[in-house]
C-alpha cells in the first residue's frame, strides 16, 4: 500500500521541531508499524537524508521502549504497543500523523525519542521491597492467597512505556505509579513498606512535573497492558490510609 506520513522531526531538545511529510510505497499489511518506519528510514538513507529516530528494542510488546502517537492516539488505533501494531489496520492511501509522546515530564530527545527517566526515579523513590540479596526466607514460609497474587500480577504487567502519560490531557503519571504501588502493596512481602512506598512515590511523581489526575480515563484506554483505571482509586485509598496513619 501507499501511505503519506507526517512525522515530527526535531534535531534535539533545544530545536523547535516541525512535522515533515514523506510519501511511502510498497508497504505490506503484514508489516509492523516499526517495520514500516524501518522501510522509510532505509529509503531516507538511500536519498542521503537522516533517518527518523525512534525508540524500540524487543519488538514483542514487552520492553516498553517503543511508543509514538499515531493519528493523535498513543500507540495508535489498536490496544497494543507500537511494535505490535500491524499495517493491516491501515488502508492504502492513508495519511498517518506520527508524533512523540507529548508531556512536560517527557522532554523530546530527538524526533520521536523522549526522555522517560522520570519513571525510573518514581520507582527509585519506593517501587521496591527492601530485600537485600541473601536475606530471603524460604519461599513457602509466607503463603500468598491466589487472588492477592493475581491482583499483584495484573498491576505488575506495566511495561513503563509512558502511553498513559501521553494519552492523559494533564500529562499525569497516576496510572503508572498506581500500578507499581498496587503490585507491591497487594502482597504480604510489600506490607512493611506499604505506607512509605505510596507517600514517597506520589511525592516523586509530583516533583517530576507530571500533571494531576482528573479521572479522564484516557490512560487506561491507551494502556497496552490493560492496567485498569480503578488502579488509581486503589492508590488514592492507599495514600489516604498512609496519611491518616501519619
Amino acid at each position, binding site marked *: 500500500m501507499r501511505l503519506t506520513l507526517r512525522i515530527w522531526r526535531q534535531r534535539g531538545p533545544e530545536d523547535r521541531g516541525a512535522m515533515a511529510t514523506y510519501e511511502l510505497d510498497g508497504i505490506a499489511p503484514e508489516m509492523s508499524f516499526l*517495520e514500516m518506519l*524501518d522501510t522509510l528510514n532505509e529509503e531516507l538513507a538511500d536519498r542521503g537524508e537522516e533517518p527518523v529516530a525512534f525508540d524500540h528494542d*524487543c*519488538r*514483542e510488546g514487552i520492553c516498553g521502549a517503543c511508543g509514538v502517537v499515531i493519528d493523535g492516539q498513543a500507540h495508535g488505533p*489498536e490496544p497494543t504497543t507500537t511494535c505490535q501494531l500491524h499495517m493491516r489496520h491501515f488502508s492504502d492511501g492513508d495519511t498517518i500523523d506520527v508524533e512523540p509522546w507529548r508531556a512536560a515530564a517527557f522532554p523530546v530527545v530527538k524526533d520521536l525519542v523522549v526522555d522517560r527517566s522520570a519513571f525510573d526515579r518514581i520507582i527509585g523513590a519506593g517501587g521496591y521491597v527492601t530485600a537485600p*540479596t541473601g536475606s*530471603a526466607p524460604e519461599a513457602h514460609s509466607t*503463603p500468598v492467597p491466589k487472588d492477592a497474587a493475581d491482583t499483584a500480577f495484573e498491576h505488575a504487567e506495566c511495561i513503563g512505556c509512558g502511553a498513559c502519560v501521553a494519552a492523559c490531557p494533564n500529562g499525569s503519571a497516576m496510572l503508572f505509579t498506581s500500578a507499581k504501588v498496587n503490585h507491591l502493596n497487594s502482597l504480604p*512481602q510489600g506490607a512493611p513498606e506499604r505506607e512509605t512506598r505510596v507517600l514517597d512515590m506520589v511525592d516523586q511523581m509530583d516533583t517530576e512535573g507530571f500533571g494531576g489526575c482528573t479521572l479522564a480515563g484516557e490512560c487506561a484506554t491507551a494502556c497496552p497492558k490493560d492496567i485498569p483505571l480503578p488502579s488509581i482509586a486503589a492508590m488514592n485509598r492507599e495514600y489516604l490510609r498512609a496519611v491518616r496513619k501519619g
Partner: protein
Amino acid sequence: MPDAADHTTQAARADLPPYAQYRVGEPIADTKAPSGPVQEQWDTRRFEAKLVNPANRRKYKVLVVGTGLAGGAAGATLAEQGYHVVQFCYQDSPRRAHSIAAQGGINAAKNYRNDGDSVHRLFYDTVKGGDFRARESNVRRLAQISVEIIDQCVAQGVPFAREYGGLLDTRSFGGVQVSRTFYARGQTGQQLLLGAYQALSRQIAAGAVEMHPRTEMLDLIVVDGRARGIVARDLVTGRIETHLADAVVLATGGYGNVFYLSTNAKNSNATAIWRAHRRGAHFANPCFTQIHPTCIPRSGDHQSKLTLMSESLRNDGRIWVPKQAGDTRPPAEIPEDERDYYLERRYPAFGNLVPRDIASRAAKSVCDEGRGVGPGGQGVYLDFADALARLGRPAVEEKYGNLFEMYQRITAEDPYEVPMRIYPAIHYTMGGLWVDYDLQTTIPGLFAIGEANFSDHGANRLGASALMQGLADGYFVVPATLGDYLARHPHDDVDPDHPAVHEAVGEVTDRLYHLLSNNGDRSPDSFHRELGELLWEDCGMARSEESLRKALERIPELRREFWERIRVPGSGTELNQSLEKANRVSDHLELAELMCLDALHRTESCGGHFRVESQSEGGEAERDDDAFSYAAAWEFTGSGAPPVLHREHLAFEHVHPTQRSYK
C-alpha cells in the same frame, strides 16, 4: 586425551581460507573450583574466598555493563554489599534489558511437587541436556543456587503463579521429567527482571549505583594485564567517555543477533564481549547457538525480527504436519489419520517435550520433506484442539492467554480456532566469553555473567534455565567471587592519561570516524541482513564442511565490502541510530567468522551444533567424545587473522556421558 587437531590436520587446513588455518595453543583449565566432592565445592569456594572489609568496600569501584537479569542482579547486590557500582545500559532505562522478554519460567530444584526432583537431578538434567559439553562444577553450583533464587525473588515481591492454597505453582519444560519450572503467566522474564530492576533502583536512589542509561560500551581498558575500565559512548550526545575502576563485569547478553533475524531485541549486540575478546578475553564455543522451536514463522522480506512463543506451549499443544507432502488443505480438513504427530511418534517418552535442538531439527526435516505448512512451507502446526477439549477454554486461557493474544495480533489468526504455525528461530547463544569457576575471563579483573559467558549450558540450554543462570550469576556467584579478586589484588588508581587509556579511546574514535566519513552506498542493515542470511544458510540448524568453508570464504569479502561501502548519515555528536547499528555490525562481521571456524573445527554434532557429517542412520546427532570432550577457547590474534585454539578438557565424574536419548 587424543589431539582433536587429528581431525583437521595441518595439511587438511592448508587449503582453507587463511583465517581458518588456526593454531592449537596450550590447554586451558579452570583453577578456581576447589578440589573435593562436587556438592561441597561452592561452599568451600565461598569459605576460601578472601573478603573485603565492609568499611573498605566503598573504596572499590566496579563497572557493571548491562542491566538484564545478570547485570541488574549483580549491580544491586554489589551495591548492597557496599561496593561503589557504576552501571551502564544502552536502553533508556535499565528496566528494558532483553531478559524482559523471557516468557516461560525459571527452573529450581525445590521439589515442591514431590516428584523426585533434587539438586542432583537438576544438575544431571542440565549436564545431559547440554549434551556433555558443560563444566560439571559450574552446573552443580547452578543447581544448588537455584533454590535460593526463588526465595530471593519471592521476597522481592515477584508475583509468581500460585495455587489456591497460596503456595507456588510449577510446570514442566522440555528435556526433563519433573515439574520444576516456576512462572508468572507468560511473563516470567519480565517479572524477574522488574524484581532486579527495582532492587537496582533502590541502590541508584541511595547513591550506591551510578547509573548511565543510553550509554554503550565500545572498548575495554586493560592496564598491566588487568581490566581497569571501559570506553563508552553517550548515545544521546555522542560523547566518548572513559570510566576507570578496580574491576569490570560484563553482563551484556549473547550474540544471537549476528544472524540478523533472531528472537533477540533489535539492539542486542555483541560489541562489549567482542571488544573484550579483541583485548585478550578468550571466546569459547561460539558455534553453540540455540534455535528455539516455537517461534512465529516469518511473513516476508521486511521481517525485522522473530517472535518467540514460550515452549511451555508444548506442554499442552501437539505438534504435527500432514503425512502427505504438498498437502495444502486447511488444517481442519485434514483427518486425524492423515496427520503426523512426528515428535510423539519418534520420541514416545518425551513426545512434544523433547529438548529444543531436537524439536527444531525435527521441524526442519519435515519441512525439508515438503510437509511444512503456511507460506513457503516453512512452518509446522502447534495444535491446542485436544487441550481445549480436555481442559476447557478458561483453563487454557489462564495458562497461555497472553501468548495466544500475541500470536493472534501478529498473524491475524485465532489459535483457539486454528492451530498455531511455528518454525524454529535463533534464540540463545550458549557460547560466550570463557570464564573460570569464579566467572572471571582470561583477563584478570574482567568477569562475564549471564548469557555473555559460555559456562553452564554446554552445547544446548534447557528451557527455563537462562533466567536461572542469569540470576545465579548476578545475585550469588559474582558478588562472592569478585570480592575475592578485589581482596587479593588491591591496586592504585589508574592514571587517566595512561597510554592504554589513550590507545582504547583512539581506536574507538578512529572506527567511528571511519564509519561516519566513508560515505559509501550501503546501509548497516543491508550488510546485517546479508550476513544473517549467509549464517542461517551455512551455519544455522545444520552445518556441513562445505557450507562452513563457503561461509569462511564469503565473510572476509563481506567485511571488506562493509568497510568500503558503508554509509552512515548524520554526525557523531548526537543521537545517531545508524552509527550505533553500523558499529555493531562491524563486530558481527568478525564474530561470525569465528563462529563458522569453531563450527568447522568441531566435526562432531552436539546439542545445538549439528554437523550433517556426524549423525546416526536415524538422523540423530552423534557426539564424538574421544575427540571433542572439551570447550574450545579461542584467542584473538588480529582482525581476520587465524586465532589460537585453547582446549579446556571436560571431565565427567558424576554424570556419565551417554548419547542423549529422549525416546
